[in-house]
């Protein structure tokens, strides 16, 4: 093969598949450059990715078929609401006293790290109050304890757990906390709030 631009000689140094095109004057510090065309498939990939990119742009910005991220988020939230409405029956919200539920409550107390603020045995620490005494800051009735764990009191440092625990689990951990009354753990923090009853 010859062109006016390069004086191309065809030669096969015996290691390749097919002809190898040498270009005159393309030698740098003994590195030769050959004039093979780029493999067809890589060029195909190149054009394909350009095509995909144009379609991508059109899909989101010109035809506006694709949802932008805020719309996508709103849809996913709505879908979840519809789905879980059915699966979150209101259930009964009363004090539990059976051993299995209290054990479950204890596990939740551990898993949710209540201990970092209330101590390993709910004895209280510098952050949160003692939960085992008869004194309560926010009321000692079951619904009051339940609501406090559910909605928290963030400005005073008690986390709201409603986004993290379903009502049933809040019921278990609240019942567990109430069951601790009088357990008298060592190092119990001085009472805060008002005595119950």
């Amino acid at each position, binding site marked *: 093969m010859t062109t006016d631009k390069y004086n191309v000689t065809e030669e096969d140094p015996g*290691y390749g598949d097919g002809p*190898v095109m040498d270009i005159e*004057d393309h030698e740098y*510090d003994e590195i030769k450059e050959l004039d093979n065309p780029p493999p067809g498939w890589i060029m195909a990939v190149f054009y394909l990715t350009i095509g995909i990119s144009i379609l991508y742009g059109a899909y989101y910005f010109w035809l506006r078929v694709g949802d932008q991220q805020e719309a996508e988020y709103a849809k996913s939230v709505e879908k979840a609401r519809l789905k879980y409405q059915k699966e*979150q029956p209101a259930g009964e919200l009363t004090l539990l006293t059976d051993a299995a539920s209290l054990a479950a409550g204890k596990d939740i107390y551990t898993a949710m790290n209540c201990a970092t603020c209330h101590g390993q045995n709910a004895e209280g620490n510098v952050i949160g109050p003692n939960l085992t005494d008869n004194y309560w800051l926010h009321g000692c009735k079951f619904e009051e304890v339940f*609501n406090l764990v559910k*909605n928290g009191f963030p400005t005073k440092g008690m986390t709201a757990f409603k986004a993290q625990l*379903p009502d049933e689990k809040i019921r278990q951990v609240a019942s567990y906390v109430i069951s601790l009354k009088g357990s008298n753990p060592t190092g119990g923090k001085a009472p805060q709030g*008002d005595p119950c009853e």
Partner: protein
Amino acid sequence: MEIQKFYYDNKIVRQFIWATIVWGVVGIIVGLLIALQLAFPVFNLDLSLTSFGRMRPLHTNAIIFAFVGNAIFAGVYYSLQKLLKTRMFNDTLSAINFWGWQLIILLAALSLTLGFTTGKEYAELEWPIDILIAIVWIVFGWNMIGTILVRRVKHIYAAIWWYLATFLGIAMLHVVNSFELPISLFKSYSIYAGAQDAVVQWWYGHNAVAFFLTTPFLGLMYYYLPKAVNRPIYSYKLSIIHFWSLIFLYMWAGPHHLLYQSLPEWAQALGTTFSVMLIAPSWGGMINGFLTLRGAWDKVRDSAALKFFVVALTAYGMATFEGPMMSLKNVNSITHFTDWTIAHVHIAGMGWNGGLTFGMLYWLIPVLFKTKLYSQKLANTHFWIATLAILLYAIPLYWSAVTQWLMWREYTPEGFLAYPNFMETLTQILPMYSIRIIGGTLFLIGFLLMVYNLVKTMTSGVCVANEAAEAPALEKLGPLNPRTETVHRWLERKGIQFSIVAFVVLAIGGAVQIIPMIFIKSNVPTLKTVTPYTPLELAGRDIYIREGCYTCHSQMVRPFRWETDRYGEYSKIGEFVYDHPYQWGSRRTGPDLGRAGNPVGPMYKNTSWHFNHFMDPQKMNEKSIMPKYAWLMVRGIDTSVIPRKIRAMQTLGVPYAEGYDAKALTDMEAQAKKIAEELKTAGIEVKPDREIIAIIAYIHKLGRDISPAAVPAPAATEKSNK
């Protein structure tokens, strides 16, 4: 034709080789240290100087700019002289390049350890060092272009195109990203804020990967691979196509680091599409490399250098396919903020940059010292150890990424997060961090074997500092002759014109994103409720930056249900307009903090919790891997700079009232006193001038402004004890 005599400067090559080796060892050891810290927090040594947030930038900077940087200079200074048949343009410039760069590295190591940082990933160095970098980098480019102009070879070879793109690209990126307003010798604020800062920073970050870790190495590959295997480069046309397409497209792709974040959708789409279009141009280099090796695979079997080149090309091909995949928004939701990205960069860094550097050194040092490699066997051992190390490093992290992502987004059948406690998702992946340590240790062992082997090789030969050579003088080059040469061929003999064209091609991608982000208001919709930081919060923010908290914490809640359920409302562009620099983070080793100050959100903790947590995170969560920050209790807030900080912020457009700098200290003391009193009611005695007060104030600012009026939940306000 006149034959001219000249001398190659081998001494400068040898100097850069030594620097590569020394900084390589240092960089890997620091890497190993931070890997240990993530698995076992005791390795933070409870010291500010050695804590993770400071060591991590030290590791990345040492590997990228010290180890890889010196390897680039070594490879370029050797091959440029050979390819152009001339000595480097000017020995003084060469010396300034070498000693200047080493000085930068020392200053960087010192300042990062001491906590002087801009808080922008991969661009952490403070402004005096930034200026030094710019000067030394321009010296490098000047020396290189000077050498091109005094060459004895008609055309400049493909390798040098890549070197030129490297010089031009980095110069542009570094200068634009480093615009910052100094308030002292050690502290400056990025002139960009929030989303704008993020766009500029990742235009820089992504293209530092391109023009520091990719283009120079493609150049080195185009020289050292055909030299080592003694085969011709497969396709000149492919060289041209993939060179121009790669340098053009790369500059557009930066926003793929900001997908699903607070960035206009059009900018994100540029990130996605231009990354996808980069597959073929990137692979062009790998293909040209592999096809250059064809028919020579028997040589690969015997030579460690060639084996490293093969690993390098393979890793390059993998990483440049993986990158575009990670730029698809749905894939990115897995890979971003998890360990996936860490695995990805180590495939590229250890495989491609490491492999190519090792291959180059194994080939170059015997040539330079006119001897044989001390032990081919040892080099092969290094090869196998290094390959195993890369696998042992990357596979556990891919595993950890997917595991943690699945746990973050898992819901119970009732529709609650299955792992609402962030720690559960972290404890699950800690064993993977231990395996990674084995990978890192092996990599270090392999590296040390190489050092031994290379030192033995060097001592068995001699490197002639000024090596005599001769070549015919360059005949006068005429204007473009369309009958005998293509335009590109003409460009190849015009160093200056080539550089100008490359510069224009490079500049487009950045301009298209940065200019609209800064000048078109609708791209950054503001929020009325967002107020500037109080002086105390600003001081706290600077401590956050100094301690490198952004290396573990994000401040960017993405619009996914599984993130908003865990952290709170997703982040909005308008929240960040006063953030100089932005602190969105890139890895969520700890939980997102963007909503830590929303008093009705799930993330809120009170002052005493934060106090105890900063003093000893392991006391709060036994398995926490956050370092202890006890020195925040010892160090006082630097009040002398507060008025200057306020004035600097005003200069940058933060709307503090006229003359607020004079009142700032009073406000700061009042707010600090309030926090100290709050702590006192919890039985914690702390002076209000301590840094820990400022950082708590800052944490409580995060997300507070967009929280729906901070009213306590009604159930908790009434009580009926009696």
